[in-house]
C-alpha cells in the first residue's frame, strides 16, 4: 500500500527531526504518526496534518532562530549593550498580517475536506451503531444486509486482562462480532446510545462520532482497501470505557454477500427457539454465558457487585424474591442509574436464561427455571 504523502520539503524534514531521530533509533513498531489511512478523507487529513506541521515548524525555526541569535549574541556576558527601542509599527503590522494570511492558507483546504466528510448523502449501506455500557450494537438498516443485527463485545480473555496469560497482539482490540462492510462502498454510520455518551472512533477510517443517548448523529466512510481496522470508544463512559473496542472488517463484495447470507441464516435459526421449553440446567448454562458477557462488568463474577456502586445479586431481595420483579428489573432497567434496560438488547431466551442463572448461582438456590415465554409476557 503506497501512502500518498506529500513531497518532502526542507522544513518538513527539519520538522520531523524528533520523529526521524526516534524512528531510526527505535524499531519500526513505533508509530509516530497517524495510522495508515484507509479512506480518501483519511488521506486528506493525513496530508493536512503534515502541511500544518511544516508550517508550524517553519515558524518555530524562524522565531526561535531569532531568539537563539539574541541569546547567543546579545547576552550580557558577550558584551551586549541594551538598545532602547520598544516599538516599531511597521514590523508589528507585518507580524499581524502574515499569520492571518497563513491561517487563511490553512483554513481553505481544511474547509474543503470538512465539507466532504460531512456529506453523508447517497450512501450504499446504512448502519446504526448503538453504544451500550460497555459494548456496541450494530443494526444494518439500509442497503445490502439490511435487517442484520448483532452485539459486539470485547473478546480479549479475562486471563490476559489479569496478566495471567501472555497478551496477544491485539490485546483489548478484539471483539466477538466484527462489523463487516464491503470495500469501496459508501457506508453511512448512524450513531446513538442507550445510556451515556460513547464515541465510535476508528482512526484508519477517520471517523470519530459521538453516540448521544436519544439522538442520532451521522458519519460515513468509503474504505479503499480491505483489512481489519480497529478502534476504541473515545468518550469516557464509565468504568468499562477502556474496554469497548470497535473492529471493522472490510471485505470484497462477494465475501460480504456470503457474510450477509450467513448472518441471515443465523438470525432465522435464532428466531425458532422462542417457543421451546428449556430445562433448568440448560438455562443455567446458557445464562452463565449471557451473564459473563453482559452483567459481570458491574455485578461481578461472584455476584457480590461493588459496594455502594453496584448492588450484589447474591442474596439480593430481587434475585431471591418474586420472579416478576426480577424480570421487570432486567427488562426495563432502573432509569437514572447505570442499570440499563436489557429488554431491547437481549432476546427473550437470553433474558430468561440470565435470570434463571442469577436465581440459582452463588447462594441463591431457588431452583426456579424461567421460560422465554414468561419474559415475553412481561414485555410491554
Amino acid at each position, binding site marked *: 500500500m503506497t501512502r500518498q504523502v506529500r513531497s518532502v520539503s526542507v522544513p518538513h524534514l527539519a520538522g520531523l527531526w524528533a520523529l526521524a531521530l526516534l524512528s531510526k533509533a527505535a524499531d519500526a513498531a513505533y508509530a509516530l504518526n497517524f495510522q495508515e489511512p484507509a479512506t480518501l478523507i483519511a488521506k486528506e487529513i493525513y496530508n493536512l496534518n503534515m502541511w500544518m506541521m511544516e508550517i508550524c515548524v517553519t515558524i518555530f525555526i524562524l522565531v526561535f532562530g531569532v531568539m537563539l541569535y539574541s541569546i547567543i549574541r546579545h547576552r550580557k556576558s558577550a558584551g551586549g549593550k541594551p538598545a532602547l527601542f520598544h516599538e516599531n509599527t511597521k514590523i508589528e503590522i507585518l507580524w499581524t498580517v502574515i499569520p492571518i494570511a497563513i491561517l487563511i492558507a490553512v483554513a481553505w483546504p481544511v474547509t474543503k475536506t470538512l465539507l466532504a466528510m460531512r456529506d453523508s448523502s447517497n450512501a450504499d449501506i446504512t448502519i*446504526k451503531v448503538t453504544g451500550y455500557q460497555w459494548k456496541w450494537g450494530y443494526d444494518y438498516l439500509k442497503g445490502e444486509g439490511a435487517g442484520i443485527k448483532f452485539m459486539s463485545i470485547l473478546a480479549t480473555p479475562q486471563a490476559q486482562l489479569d496478566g495471567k496469560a501472555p497478551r496477544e497482539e491485539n490485546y483489548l482490540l478484539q471483539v466477538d462480532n466484527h462489523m463487516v462492510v464491503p470495500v469501496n462502498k459508501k457506508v453511512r454510520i*448512524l450513531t*446513538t446510545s442507550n445510556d451515556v455518551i460513547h464515541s465510535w472512533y476508528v482512526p484508519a477510517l477517520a471517523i470519530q462520532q459521538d453516540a448521544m443517548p*436519544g*439522538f*442520532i448523529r*451521522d458519519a460515513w466512510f468509503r474504505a479503499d482497501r480491505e483489512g481489519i481496522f480497529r478502534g476504541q470508544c473515545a468518550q469516557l463512559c464509565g468504568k468499562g470505557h477502556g474496554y469497548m473496542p470497535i473492529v471493522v472488517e472490510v471485505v470484497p463484495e462477494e465475501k460480504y454477500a456470503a457474510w450477509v447470507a450467513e448472518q441471515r441464516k443465523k438470525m432465522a435459526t435464532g428466531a425458532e427457539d422462542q417457543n421451546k421449553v428449556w430445562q433448568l440446567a440448560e438455562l443455567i448454562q446458557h445464562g452463565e454465558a449471557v451473564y459473563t458477557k453482559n452483567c459481570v462488568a458491574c455485578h461481578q463474577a461472584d455476584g457480590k457487585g461493588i459496594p455502594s456502586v453496584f448492588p450484589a445479586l447474591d442474596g439480593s431481595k430481587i434475585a431471591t424474591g418474586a420472579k416478576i420483579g426480577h424480570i421487570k428489573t432486567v427488562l426495563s432497567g432502573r432509569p437514572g442509574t447505570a442499570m440499563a434496560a436489557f429488554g431491547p438488547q437481549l432476546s427473550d431466551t437470553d433474558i430468561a436464561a440470565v435470570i434463571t442463572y442469577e436465581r440459582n448461582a452463588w447462594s441463591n438456590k431457588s431452583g426456579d427455571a424461567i421460560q422465554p415465554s414468561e419474559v415475553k409476557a412481561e414485555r410491554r
Partner: protein
Amino acid sequence: MTQQGSYYYVPSASYWPLVGTLALLLLASGAVLWVNSYSLGPLVVTLGFAVLIFMLAGWFRTVIRESESGLYGQRVDASFRWAMSWFIFSEVMFFAAFFGTLFYARVLSVPDLASVDGQLLWPNFSAIWPNAGPGYKDRFSPMAAMGIPAINTLLLLSSGATLTWAHWGLLKSNRNQLRLGLILTIALGLLFISLQAHEYSHAYSEMNLKLTTGIYGTTFYMLTGFHGLHVTIGVTMLTVMLFRVLAGHFKPDHHFAFEAVAWYWHFVDVVWLLLFVVVYWI
C-alpha cells in the same frame, strides 16, 4: 468627611470571613447529605443557614458601623460601586446560562429530536413548543402570559418606579417620601412573591405542570424559580434598608448601600421583563 486622614480604609483583622466559610461548608455538606437522603442533611443545612445569617448580620453590621462613623471616603465609595456593578454582572451571566438553555431547547434540541433522523428513535414526535419531550406521556397545560404573569409584570415595573421615587426623596432629604417609597416597594415585592407562589401551586395542582414536566417544566420552574429567589433576596435587602432609614441612616451624598440595593432591584426587574417575554409570552 474624614477624607483628610486617609486615602483608603483598610479594615482590621476579622473573624467574619471565617464564619462565612464555616457556613458554606455546613450548607454544602448538609446539602450533599440531604440530596442523598441522609437524615442528618436537613439539620446540617439548617445549621449552615443559621450560621450564614449570623455571619451576614454581623459582617454587615460592622460595615454599617464603619460607614456611619465616617471611615469610608470617596475612594471606598467608588470601590463599592465597582464591586456592586461587577457582582450584578456575574448575576447576569448566571441567568444567561439558563436563558441560553431555554433558547437551546426551543431552537435546537427539540426540533432535532423531531428531525428525520430523530424519527428513528422517537417516531411521531413533533416539535411544537411548549414541549415536554418525546418520553413524556402525560398531558399538561402551559402557563399563559396574560393573567397573573401580566399582573406581576405591572407590579414589578411599578415597584421600580416607587423605588426611584424613594431615592428622589432621599436626595431631596424628604425622609417621608423615602420611607413611603420604600414601604410601597417592599409591599409590591411581597405581593409579587405571593402571586408567584399562588401561580406555582395552581400549576402543580390543576395544570399538571411540574418541575418534572420535561424541558418545558424544567426551564419554566428553574428560570422563574431563580428569579423568585432573587426577588426574595431583594425584598430582604430592601427591608434592611427600611430599618436603616428608620434608624436615621443615609445622607443625600452618602448612601451607597441604598443605591446598591436599588441597582439590584432594577436588575431583578429587567430579568423579569425578559422572562415575561421569552418564558410566558412567545
